């Protein structure tokens, strides 16, 4: 590419945007609106997934150990379960601790509670087990239940499977929303570029006729697409950035129990991603739409 060509291409790009200001504005707005929606859907997905994870993280298995088990056997059992696949952590809760906790909830001290219960601690030692993946909770609970030292497990049977189905759906819906809007954005942009190319088909025809190379015809459109995509992406990043902060602030002050993701790195990544996606969509849309016109 010679200097003359480069100068011509840049001049032509600006010229074209000036000549069709409304089409340029329409393209920028299309990119912006699509990316704003896309950006919010990404944050929705992140939050939905985070919410699902925080629900799942609260899942744990309580395994009740046979009364005859000694303290050292209990520790051996803890080590054994820790070694099982899919186990994140195992904590011992001795029956004395359980009694204390129970006493606290009943509003008495350990001793008079013990007295009230006839001097005998009715509780058994417990192990609190967390799974690495919430999806494994049920299988893991069954495996632990099968151990001879364990006489019972509790993990919120009947509730867990429903919760897992719900969180899975939450993720799928989030992903679906993102995908739908990404496709819509690409379609809208390619329509815009097609209109742009169509409005200049005569010019392209003459360029081809007097011997302009394909790349020469393509460059101004590609640069225009990149520029429009960049502006649209930048506007979208600003709107999404400010909008998300605003929503996060309001949600946290009113619905305090909802875990809102506020990860600065992720935040920056999404905004830069929007900018790049805008440019990419602009350039790609131009390229695809031009292909048809460049065929001789």
């Amino acid at each position, binding site marked *: 590419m010679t200097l003359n060509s480069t100068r*011509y291409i840049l001049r032509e790009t600006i010229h074209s945007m000036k000549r069709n200001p409304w089409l340029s504005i329409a393209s920028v707005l299309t990119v912006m609106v699509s990316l704003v929606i896309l950006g919010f859907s990404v944050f929705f997905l992140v939050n939905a997934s985070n919410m699902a994870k925080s629900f799942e993280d609260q899942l744990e298995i309580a395994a009740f150990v046979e009364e005859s088990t000694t303290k050292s056997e209990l520790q051996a059992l803890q080590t054994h379960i820790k070694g099982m696949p899919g186990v994140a952590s195992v904590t011992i809760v001795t029956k004395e601790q359980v009694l204390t906790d129970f006493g606290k909830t009943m509003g008495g001290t350990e001793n008079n509670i013990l007295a009230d219960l006839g001097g005998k601690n009715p509780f058994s030692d417990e192990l609190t087990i967390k799974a690495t993946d919430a999806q494994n909770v049920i299988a893991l609970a069954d495996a632990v239940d099968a151990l001879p030292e364990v006489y019972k497990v509790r993990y919120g049977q009947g509730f867990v499977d429903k919760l897992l189905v719900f969180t899975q759906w939450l993720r799928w819906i989030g992903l679906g929303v993102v995908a739908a809007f990404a496709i819509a954005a690409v379609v809208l942009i390619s329509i815009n570029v097609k209109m742009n190319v169509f409005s200049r088909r005569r010019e392209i025809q003459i*360029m081809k006729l007097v*011997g302009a190379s394909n790349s020469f015809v393509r460059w101004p459109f590609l640069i225009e697409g990149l520029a429009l995509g960049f502006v649209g992406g930048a506007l979208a990043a600003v709107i999404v950035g400010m909008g998300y902060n605003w929503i996060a602030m309001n949600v946290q002050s009113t619905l305090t129990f909802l875990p809102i993701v506020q990860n600065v790195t992720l935040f920056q990544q999404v905004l830069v991603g929007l900018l790049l996606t805008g440019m990419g969509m602009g350039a790609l849309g131009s390229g695809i739409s031009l292909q048809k016109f460049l065929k001789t």
Partner: protein
Amino acid sequence: MIQLKNVSKIYPNGAKALIDVNLTIGKGDFVFLVGPSGAGKSTLIKLFYRDEIPTRGQVHINSKNLIRMKEREVPYLRRTIGVIFQDFKLLPNKTVLENVAFALEVIGVSRKEIQLRTRATLELVGLANKEKSYPHELSGGEQQRVCVARAIINNPALLVADEPTGNLDPETAWGIMDLLYNINKRGTTVVMATHARAIVNKMQKRVIAIENGRVARDEIKGGYGYDA
């Protein structure tokens, strides 16, 4: 310059535009293509600058094989061929100067050279005083002169014209013919498809008649040969 061997062109809709055409046009020739509308003249002309590719047969322009030519070589072929149309095909939002300069800009000629050559070419076609005008401010004849200027600014070896006088009154048409005559005198091969009987009869150049996609007549100093 131009050599066609057993060329047939059948469009995807089944229309047979050209059937087994054999043709040789030498360097520096001036050739009229005549024949009824739809006989295949435009298709024949489009083969020369590879706007169409024949279904069968061989086309050589300037001893280049257009059938085997790669897509990316086509722009370089076109830089050696000037094309003139009945409807001028000017860009409405560019001035006369810009329209002519366009042909040089898109092939990467320097600004200084564009200035020089554009001015000289506009001078040649007699439009030096109209360079700042827009196409819609010009008469039909003037617009066609702009189109001619754009076609010859690259000093093409071949100039093809598809009914260049079709939209012009007889007097204006003669002005364009003078121009083409002079361009031909400088050594450029000119092929012109036309329905202008008076022009063909008066100029006494080679006449090739196309009828139903075949060469029906080829005379060195021919006349139009059809009743008006």
